[in-house]
């Protein structure tokens, strides 16, 4: 037991130590050495075998020996046909799932012809205002065979309805449609900050979607509980872990309160983590997340179905870690981050492109990013054995510590009365802003290094080509939306929108009325306007 201390006193202290702070990118200080003395719990309690509770070593029995992770590159820009072409390119390059990025107006519930959309149409994602845009977006893509992820939150109910109506019109029954919609509103207030109404009605819409999908679209993941944006906003790894799991707890509680049985919906909950630069910290975070979720689902919610306890996850390399300076270096960062994801046992992965701090990625840059995953999968050999870091003293100690520290945050949030209350007081928002500021200060003092930015910088940047979005697409999309609005049966649309408003008030599940409105050509903005009128508009408190 004391051998570590003896070693530290007699050997380590006599050896050289660089005068730096040995801490993770989240500024968690690490010990020089971890030994068997740092392990806690028995093997079965703490780890278990892959595919077995508490799933620390992976949720599936054979993990990547059975099936590789889904390579799913997030894509979207310009008009629906531009993104459709990128989808076909990616599928042609060996990608096996789609992931859609929408533009800011779509994400905030405005049609392309709204004045607030000016200058933003198709800029950082694809513009979708009507069901016809959605049909173009998925043209010649078999919706019963390719699984699709849609990154959209406050207007998610409308976009999901549009996707289902497109499938319906292509003769594909809803039961056969598979995919994921991000639809994690809690992390919007905490980090990503795209919203329409205040947190409570937003949570009600999410729960409506969980309930609707559990009954009508059984292969759909109605919410992807996301730490990604929390981390991008500047949180530490522990905060990402804690706030994300706390968000998950809030969704489960609300659905249970609605009367759903936990095992009726929890097997379709999924997660989405960030993969940052600190390699061991990220591997430990993913392992800790699986164990925490399994324990919480079993002990706190009484789940019986093992699938309810399994944390299925997508992950994406950290956009905020990439640098505009010497951008080709980003290929290396992405490779290392992606490797952490694979060693952490993710089910689906997006690798960022080297040029994404400058603009949306070019086709060439996206291909390198996809090839990075293919190299990890097929050249490095890390998929041959399951959870190769299991039993590493350092990784296990870090996994334990992250779980412990995250559970402490969750305890504090429970004391506040849960995540909605915590958000209303600005607790997670302030914690993240504090961590972001702390990191920036460490960077400026040189305590933390970003290669090419505060160390090893060069005067001349290496120019790389970037994707330009044609300004003319905005006008084209505005005309398209106006044409739909002109030519549809406006009485039928009005009736359908009134039905949604009625459901907002009565508490009836909103999804069927939204689907009907979409069938009648109601737009993203029009349904969102009903939410604005019925639930009110949320404004940023502007906390610093």
């Amino acid at each position, binding site marked *: 037991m004391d051998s570590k201390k003896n070693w530290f006193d007699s050997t380590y202290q006599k050896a050289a130590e660089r005068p730096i702070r040995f801490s993770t990118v989240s500024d968690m200080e690490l010990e020089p050495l971890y030994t068997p003395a740092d392990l806690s719990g028995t093997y079965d309690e703490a780890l278990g075998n892959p595919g077995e509770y508490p799933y620390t070593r992976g949720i599936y029995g054979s993990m990547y020996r059975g099936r590789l992770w889904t390579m799913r590159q997030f894509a979207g820009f310009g008009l629906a046909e531009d993104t459709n072409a990128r989808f076909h390119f990616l599928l042609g390059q060996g990608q096996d799932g789609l992931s859609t990025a929408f533009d*800011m107006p779509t994400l905030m519930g405005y049609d392309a012809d709204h004045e607030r959309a000016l200058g933003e149409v198709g800029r950082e994602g694809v513009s979708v205002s009507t069901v016809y845009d959605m049909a173009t977006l998925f043209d010649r893509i078999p919706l019963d065979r390719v699984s699709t992820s849609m990154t959209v939150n406050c207007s998610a109910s409308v976009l999901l309805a549009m996707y289902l109506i497109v499938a319906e019109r292509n003769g594909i029954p809803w039961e056969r449609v598979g995919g994921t919609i991000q639809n994690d509103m809690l992390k*919007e207030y905490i980090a990503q*900050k795209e919203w329409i109404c205040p947190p409570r009605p937003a949570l009600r819409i999410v729960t409506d979607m969980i309930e609707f999908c559990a009954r009508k679209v059984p292969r759909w993941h109605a919410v992807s509980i996301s730490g990604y944006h929390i981390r991008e906003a*500047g949180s530490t790894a522990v905060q990402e872990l804690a706030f994300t799991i706390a968000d998950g707890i809030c969704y489960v509680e609300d659905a249970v309160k609605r009367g759903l049985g936990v095992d009726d919906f929890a097997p379709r909950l999924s997660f989405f983590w960030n993969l940052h630069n600190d390699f061991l910290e990220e591997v430990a975070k993913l392992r800790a997340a699986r164990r925490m979720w399994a324990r919480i689902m079993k002990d706190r919610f009484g789940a019986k179905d093992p699938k309810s306890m399994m944390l299925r996850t997508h992950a994406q390399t950290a956009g905020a870690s990439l*640098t505009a300076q010497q951008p080709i270096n980003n290929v290396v960062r992405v490779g290392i981050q992606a490797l952490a994801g694979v060693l952490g046992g993710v089910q689906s992965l997006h690798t960022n492109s080297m040029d994404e701090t400058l603009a949306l990625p070019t086709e060439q840059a996206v291909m390198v990013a996809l090839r990075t995953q293919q190299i990890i999968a097929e050249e490095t050999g890390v998929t041959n054995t399951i959870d190769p870091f299991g039993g590493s003293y350092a990784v296990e100690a870090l996994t334990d510590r992250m779980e412990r520290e995250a559970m402490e945050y969750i305890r504090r949030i429970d004391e506040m009365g849960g995540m909605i209350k915590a958000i209303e007081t600005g607790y997670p928002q302030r914690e993240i802003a504090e961590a972001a500021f702390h990191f920036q200060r460490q*960077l400026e003092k040189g305590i933390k290094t970003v290669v090419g930015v505060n160390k090893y910088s060069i005067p001349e940047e290496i120019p790389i080509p970037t994707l330009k979005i044609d300004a003319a697409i905005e006008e084209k999309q505005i005309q398209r939306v106006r044409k739909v609005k002109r030519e549809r049966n406006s009485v039928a649309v009005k009736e359908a929108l009134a039905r949604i408003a009625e459901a907002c008030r009565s508490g009836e599940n909103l999804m069927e009325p939204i689907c009907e409105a979409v069938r009648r050509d109601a737009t993203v903005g029009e349904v969102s306007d009903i939410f604005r009128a019925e639930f009110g508009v949320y404004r940023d408190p502007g906390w*610093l």
Partner: protein
Amino acid sequence: MADKRLRILVAKPGLDGHDRGAKIIARALRDGGFEVIYTGLHQTPEMIAEAAVQEDADAVGLSVLSGAHMTLFPEVMRLLKERGAADVAVFGGGIIPDDDVVKLKGMGVRQIFTPGASTEDIIKWVRENVAPRQ
């Protein structure tokens, strides 16, 4: 030099929710001794120009990461001018390509800070380039 502290409005125009940078800058400027007013997210150019006048700001820092800078920056400039506040120093930051930086400066935007700029650079620039409005 007046001993009045410079008042700086840090603003987030447009729809993107990326406020990490704006909040760090706002806080660093405040720590740097300036009076800082932060608008919060999702402001229209009208709201920003109005706030600049109401708050008697000497400078306005705009943060845009959605690619809509070529629409939003000129609109804020135009509306400031319309309100007789053309002398408010407008600077900005975000994911802004070099070509656009040149164009924005041509329109009278005083400075653009792109990813990797340090808060110290920004504080120094404000000290050296922003004067209290008359």
